[in-house]
């Protein structure tokens, strides 16, 4: 499902006088279809950049990122957008719900740029996460836990092969965090989607059978 090799990504910071500082340097990484893996990493370790590279939001400097057999590296941005819209779901730490859109529309937009808007699927997913009574509400009218559930439903709206979750429980209390995490894992399992989660929260990580340290995978200092 996901196969990464020799991935490099660096940024030019103002204090670096034009030189690019390596942030992500992953020699090899993979995820099988339906597999669920958690990556442990501290803040600022490059986890989000890593996920952005896999999602095609950022372009890699070099290497290969194969998602469902398609190498994203070297693809033009529009094609990466298309792959993200069709094959990848993304759950953000801050949920990133669109405040001016209803709950149903937020979920609908999760599939709108891929297969197209399907209101019945959006409603079905919201029913699955227990929010069928909140379809026409706006995110600000929901609790934090409910907002996270909308974000989960949206991430699965496009029937993704891979779900990326970036600190998905970072804004939740422990009870809600556990419930949200259980929901993400369960729904991914139901849809046969692989799940790659990054977090620094030990309680979150303890819910996973398979956990790896991001620092073991990512060695930017080695490539500097």
């Amino acid at each position, binding site marked *: 499902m996901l196969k990464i090799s020799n991935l490099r990504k660096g940024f030019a910071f103002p204090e670096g006088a034009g030189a690019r500082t390596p942030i992500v340097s992953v020699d090899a990484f993979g995820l099988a279809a339906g597999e669920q893996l958690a990556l442990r*990493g*501290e*803040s*600022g*370790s490059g*986890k*989000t*950049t890593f996920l*952005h590279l896999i*999602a095609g*939001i*950022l372009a890699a400097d070099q290497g290969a990122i194969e998602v469902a057999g398609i190498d994203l590296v070297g693809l033009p*941005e*529009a094609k990466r*957008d*298309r792959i*993200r*819209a*069709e094959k990848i779901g*993304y759950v*953000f*730490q*801050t949920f*990133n*719900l*669109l*405040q*001016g*859109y209803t709950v149903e*529309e937020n979920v*609908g*937009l*999760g599939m*709108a*740029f*891929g297969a*197209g*808007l399907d209101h019945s699927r959006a409603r079905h997913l919201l029913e699955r996460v227990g929010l069928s009574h909140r379809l026409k509400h706006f995110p600000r009218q929901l609790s934090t836990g409910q907002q996270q559930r909308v974000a989960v439903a*949206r991430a699965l709206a*496009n029937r993704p092969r891979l779900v990326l979750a*970036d*600190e998905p429980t970072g804004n939740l209390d422990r009870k809600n965090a556990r419930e949200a995490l259980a929901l993400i894992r369960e729904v991914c399992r139901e849809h046969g989607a692989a799940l790659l989660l*990054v977090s*620094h929260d030990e309680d979150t990580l303890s819910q996973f059978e398979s956990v790896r340290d991001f620092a073991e995978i990512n060695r930017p200092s080695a490539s500097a």
Partner: protein
Amino acid sequence: MTLLLIIYRSLRQHALSTVVTAASIALAVGLLMTVWMVRDQSQEAFLTTSKGFDAVLGARGSQLQLVLNAIFHLEASPGNLAWSDYEAIKHHPAVKAAIPIAVGDNLRGFRLVGTIPEMFTITYPEGRRFRLEPGGRSFDPSAKEAVLGSFVADKLGLKVGDTFHPFHGLVYDPKGDQHPDLYTVVGIFQPTNTPDDKVVWIPLHGLQTMTGHDPKTATDVSAVLVQLRSSFAGVMLGITYNRQGNRLTLAYPVPNIISDLFSRISWFDQVLALVAYLVAVVAAGSVLASIYNSMSARRRDLAILRALGAKRRTIFGAIVAEAALIGLIGSLGGFLFYFGLLSAVAEIIRAQTGVVLVLTKWHPILWECPVGMIALCALGGILPAFKAYRTPVAETLAPTS
């Protein structure tokens, strides 16, 4: 569908600026369309208001003044001409019909025009004729009777059987002299949509011999309205009266003289058009400014949409389409503004001149202006769309870990 949803939600989120911007566009579109329509329709209406007459014969003076006085019932008469002059042109072989008119009095601001009953048998362009409202009749040339234009009857509230004393002079002065002659309304004409709707028609003899008028001019007329058998006859008569004689003036052809009037005041149209264009440019600029200023607030939403798979060109298209939609909404509002403004202007023109503008008449400006405005707004959306196009997704979707 998705694009429409994005545009709709964006407009809803910025409802106040959307309404204000659309209102400024409505103002621009309404103003532009009104300026064009009033200009073209008033020109057309004035040019076609020759009432079936080809020429006007009057005392020596300006042809324009003669036409304005005899056809549009505006301005003072340049002077009188003798009855023999009327007889001479009436019997000229090139003349099909000659109708004398006399002016000099008014009824509460509406001009009294003395004429002969044959005036009402003349066929206007497009086959229109004077038609009386039911229950009325034309005046008896030897009686003190009057037939009212529809606008006069409406404004003064007069009906068949009512009587009145005319006021002296063309300008109404409530404290001015009122003739002792008592006239009875015997008929009211249906609207002709010409200046004749503002006229009180009385027999020619009645106006000539009105108590207080100089008996020495009792057979004079103010002008003669002429129908010619051919345009060549008009040229020949023009040479006869205007070049060879020095006592009378033949205003011919009537439309050309009116056209000359419009060309003299064309600068005014140009100023109005310039103002309307400026309003349009400012309105399009306000679209640009309102969307551009909202870009900071939208930055995160745009980044989220991009993260969900929206392509840069989708975002670009959504912003341009949103600007165009504001232009469309404004243009639709512009039609309301246009109808309101045009109605008001048309009423003023009708009250002042009797010329009626047709509000529902089609004019290419009615599609050219809205389409142009929508295109201008879309153009105004390009700069903010480009800003949206360049939104960095990863940076905007902070925090990072």
